[in-house]
């Protein structure tokens, strides 16, 4: 059980750095969804299944879709960050 905790912590923090550093915004949004996914695993470990389900459905699913669609709408200007 402790290795699952360690793994999801490492994945979450690595994905958080990826959100900061990746130039391609669609990749950054994917990284944000990975953070949200790892966070919902942490919530399961913290005995909070309701919150894990909400974080997965809202954080990974909905926010990812909304953000990706907006970047698509912004065209080339929105895609790459100098």
């Amino acid at each position, binding site marked *: 059980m402790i290795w699952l905790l360690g793994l999801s912590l490492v994945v979450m923090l690595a994905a958080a750095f990826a959100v900061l550093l990746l130039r391609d915004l669609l990749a950054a949004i994917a990284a944000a969804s990975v953070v949200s996914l790892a966070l919902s695993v942490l919530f399961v470990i913290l005995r909070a299944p*309701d919150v894990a*389900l909400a974080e997965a459905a809202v954080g990974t*699913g909905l926010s990812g879709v909304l953000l990706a669609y907006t970047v698509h709408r912004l065209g080339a200007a929105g895609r790459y960050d100098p």
Partner: protein
Amino acid sequence: MRGRDLAALLFLAGLGALLASVMAELGFGNPPLRAGGPILEQSPSQVGAANIVTSVVLAYRGMDTLVELTILFTAATAAGMVLGQGTRAGRSQSPAGFILSTAADALFPFLLVLGAYIILHGHLTPGGGFQGGTILAVAFFLPLLAQPNAGIDERITTWVEGSAGAAFLLIALAGLAGDGFMAPFPGGELGELLSAGSLPVLYLALGLKVGAELAGLMGRLLTEDEA
């Protein structure tokens, strides 16, 4: 590393050190449970929901959920104000590829069933109005990705939003006749599908409203064309 980045880094290092020192003092693993303890003991008798988090969300802290519902409604109204200008003509976005269309059609019924299940069993198993509503919103949003010109019928989402919200609030106001605003009505035997009195009905209204709101929001974002 420009000057501004360095300044931000220093400020955050200080904030991190402050938080680390302060949080080290907080014990971990033995929460004082001044509010949680009594809830764990008395919620089966007072509210009767197997999922105690649901009894907290809808009964003990029902006002938070009502305000939460209103926040989503405000976000949808405000987004409508910002994006309302675009002409609804919608440029002729090419219908999505074959894979997305078939996947959208195939997934639609499963997402509906999953969303409805999570809403209706909110008082028994983890899940509830928010999570189920989000899944319903995605269920209605997928076919939109497949055929962008279809658009979501504004009238239906507004009507569902208004009536579900009003239903939630009327049940809350009905509580005034009982013990007070948002008072839970008892009913049914713990653990059964029809239990925890008014909670399942509240979660159903909440789920439909969240689903309609988010579907409306996403639909408006999608069909809003470059005016």
